[in-house]
């Protein structure tokens, strides 16, 4: 009988299966209904009557779906790809696929985008503090005038992405792909880029005080008008052009290998 109940709930929640909140609610409802079913049986109702009384007590399921939470309603808008001006703080968006999504003027603090595919999405003037992009695909993404403090980009693919005029203090970039990426005008003070490969990456007018590029490899990297004097290039390898530009900007290039 409990199995029958489970199947019944599976059936009515089928169209909404993907939503995390729905899964939890289904579990909650199932436990309640199982307890109700056994109470009905203890009161002396036969199995079939107890079952149909239990099912009847659910009422109109649409009532729940419509008001599971405003967050869920926002998630349903995923199809429209426009999340601008929406409060998505602390949302679980792990593994979502949103190509060319718009997250402009959005509150995304603490949101978990790990493993998601956000190719060519744009984030303008958004609060991305503490957001996790672990292993996310952000190739071609545009992040502009946003707060990215303490953001985790570990293992993310940022090929061709632009992060401009943004605050990246304490952001992490372990095992990231940063080819042809553009950091123009962003504050990267204190950020650690150790052991990474940079091909065609642009750091024009970026704040690089205390930024660490230890053992990094640079090819065709642009540092125009960037403040490189206090950046750390210890053990780095770079092509002649990148070296010449950095030297001209008075960067500390002791222990750098030129290729």
């Amino acid at each position, binding site marked *: 009988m409990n199995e029958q109940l489970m199947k019944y709930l599976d059936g009515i929640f089928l169209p909404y299966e993907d939503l995390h909140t729905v899964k939890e*609610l289904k579990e909650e*409802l*199932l436990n309640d209904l199982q307890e109700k079913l056994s109470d009905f049986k203890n009161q002396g109702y036969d199995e079939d009557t107890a079952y149909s009384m239990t099912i009847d007590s659910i*009422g109109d399921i649409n009532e729940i779906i419509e*008001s599971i939470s405003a*967050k869920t309603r926002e998630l349903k808008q995923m199809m429209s790809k426009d999340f601008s001006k929406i409060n998505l703080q602390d949302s679980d968006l792990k593994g979502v696929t949103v190509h060319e999504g718009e997250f402009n003027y959005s509150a995304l603090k603490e949101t978990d985008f790990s493993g998601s595919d956000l190719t060519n999405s744009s984030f303008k003037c958004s609060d991305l503090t503490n957001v996790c992009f672990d292993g996310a695909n952000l190739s071609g993404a545009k992040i502009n005038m946003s707060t990215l403090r303490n953001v985790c980009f570990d293992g993310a693919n940022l090929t061709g992405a632009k992060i401009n005029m943004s605050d990246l203090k304490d952001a992490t970039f372990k095992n990231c792909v940063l080819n042809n990426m553009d950091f123009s005008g962003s504050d990267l003070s204190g950020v650690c880029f150790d052991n990474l490969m940079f091909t065609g990456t642009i750091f024009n007018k970026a704040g690089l005080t205390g930024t660490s590029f230890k053992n990094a490899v640079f090819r065709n990297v642009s540092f125009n008008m960037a403040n490189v004097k206090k950046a750390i290039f210890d053990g780095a390898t770079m092509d002649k052009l990148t070296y010449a530009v950095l030297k001209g900007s008075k960067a500390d290039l002791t222990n750098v290998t030129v290729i």
Partner: protein
Amino acid sequence: MVDNKISSDLLRGHTDTIILKLLMSGDKYGYEISKLIHSNSKGEYELKESTMFSSLKRLEYDGCITSYWGDETHGGRRRYYKIADRGIKLYFENKKNWDNAKRILDQLL
């Protein structure tokens, strides 16, 4: 059991307040709430699960209640609901509004 649709709709409109009142006396899980509504109304009102959960989820989203999974050792785990300060305030507001409405209706009907 209330078979009259009008009284049932009238009661349903107060689901949030009924639930808030029950949570004022301590944390409760879903089925516990529906059992208490059934017994406190002397079996005259049965709250549908859908109505109850939609109210619980709405109250939670509005910050009037919070919820947490209990640590049951046997059987399915239960999700408990706890009233927040905001919920207590809402309860007293709603109660006052209802008392006013009741007084006016008593004069009019």
